């Protein structure tokens, strides 16, 4: 039995696009904000021994929080896990890629995010004054 966390996507479309038997897939519907709920996600992954675990979304290009999905694969030990979409594409977990690409990228993202927020705290009040002055 495979475990699939569904984010807005449809099980039938995902199974058809990835050649899976729907009867062999246990589905848990989640909102992508639930990825912050570590106990729920990890708890479900560790509830029983699955053949594999997937996060299923509509389109990979538009899916947020993919780093954290991969982190769950690592923490749960499902290193064959993948993020899949309804168009048949898959973003598979790779330990090497995670260490050498995704962790550096999340650090860059974190630094860039801090800069964006600081910049916005300066810019937004100025824009408010400028855009609303008569």
């Amino acid at each position, binding site marked *: 039995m495979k475990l699939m966390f569904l984010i*807005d996507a*449809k099980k039938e479309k995902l199974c058809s696009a990835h050649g899976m038997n729907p009867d062999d897939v246990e589905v848990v519907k989640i909102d992508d904000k639930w990825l912050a709920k570590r106990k729920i996600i990890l708890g479900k992954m560790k509830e029983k021994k699955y053949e594999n675990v997937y996060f299923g*979304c*509509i389109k990979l290009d538009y899916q947020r929080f993919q780093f954290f999905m991969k982190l769950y694969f690592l923490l749960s030990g499902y290193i064959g896990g993948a993020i899949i979409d309804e168009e048949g594409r898959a973003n598979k977990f790779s330990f090497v890629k995670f260490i050498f690409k995704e962790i550096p990228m999340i650090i860059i993202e974190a630094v860039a*995010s801090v800069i964006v927020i600081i910049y916005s705290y300066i810019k*937004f009040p100025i824009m408010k004054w400028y855009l*609303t002055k008569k």
Partner: protein
Amino acid sequence: MVSDEKVKVMFWRTEFYGALTEGGTVSLHVGKIRGFQKLGHEVFYVSSGPMKLPEGVKLYQIPYSKLYRNFPEVLHPNYNRRSINAIIKIIEKEQPNFLHKHHHDFHYGGAWLKKHLGLPFILHVDGIEYWVKKNWGKLYFSHLLRWAEDTELEASDAIIVISDSLKRQLVEYGVNGDKIHVVPNGVHPDQFYPEIGDKGLKKSLGLEDRFIVGYTGTFGRWHGVEVLAESVKHIVKRIPNAVVMFVGDGDLRPKIEEITKRDGVFDKIMITGFVPFTDIPHYLSMFDVAVSPCINNDDNEFFNSPVKLFEYMAMGKPIVASSVGQQGVVIENGVNGLLHEEKQPEELAERIFEIYSNKDLADRLGKEARRRAIEKHDWKFNAQAILDAYKGVVGKK
């Protein structure tokens, strides 16, 4: 002053919604766009993601940056610069008469376009983002959110809201009430009509001999789906062959499952998940009674305008709705539907039973609902109200 000449409207949706092309916001936008088309006007649509639009409507996508995808809200402030730079080129090409923007968090692009291009700016507001995040979600970067929200609300030439309650809230929030126009949501009676049929759905779902109590919509905070879930045990006690169908999906789905499992009636419900917008009339066609058990918010009154209510009406369905906010105005108890007190699952079940046990009442309510949907709630009236607001803005200049 603008005469009755045809106009070109630019719709702008700035929220990040992934690749989801179903749900309430889509129904709202498609409804309005078709309303403008019915009146002979041209529309194009600018959005951050894919969208299923009516034929003849051009879609321009301005995607969010791929860099900011792992931390909450950070992607939004950055989208201002990105989206404004891109939309200027689109405006140069399309030359719209005015901007109709759906209000979303951390974005001040409408104010920017008005200031720099002089584009008349009509803002659609279906909730004060600061309030929504604070009460229903998580509030990060609250100052940024308020600065952006205040900018848009203050700079807009006119604001379209969906209910009187929301207008009151905006005025309390400090917005000039003179520029706020109350325009409830609507429906296309030529798309939602009784004869459309279920396209074989009832048979394929094995529900041919069942009494179907139906709900459509997102399972969000104000929709009252928990109340409906709580009422299932009362419904099946009185109507043993009833099935309660939840057409949609959302955050409260686990709550529905938890309640009905606790009450031992999980096998009496059906949750479809999101269905394509074009299939919703077919699902509605199966319903014997349609329900809208919306609830007030914890510390303020219900301010929404449920699209589902107008769709039920246009389908000629007998409706049971809670009496909160606009629902208590649109539904006249015993005339075009039955009302119940909010958060009263037993009373909801009782009203459903009244319809189940009185076919004449069900027919009468359904016919009157359909008549009123055609006469008062067609999306074209909504589009006309926005055009009137635009004409008012241009007339003043």
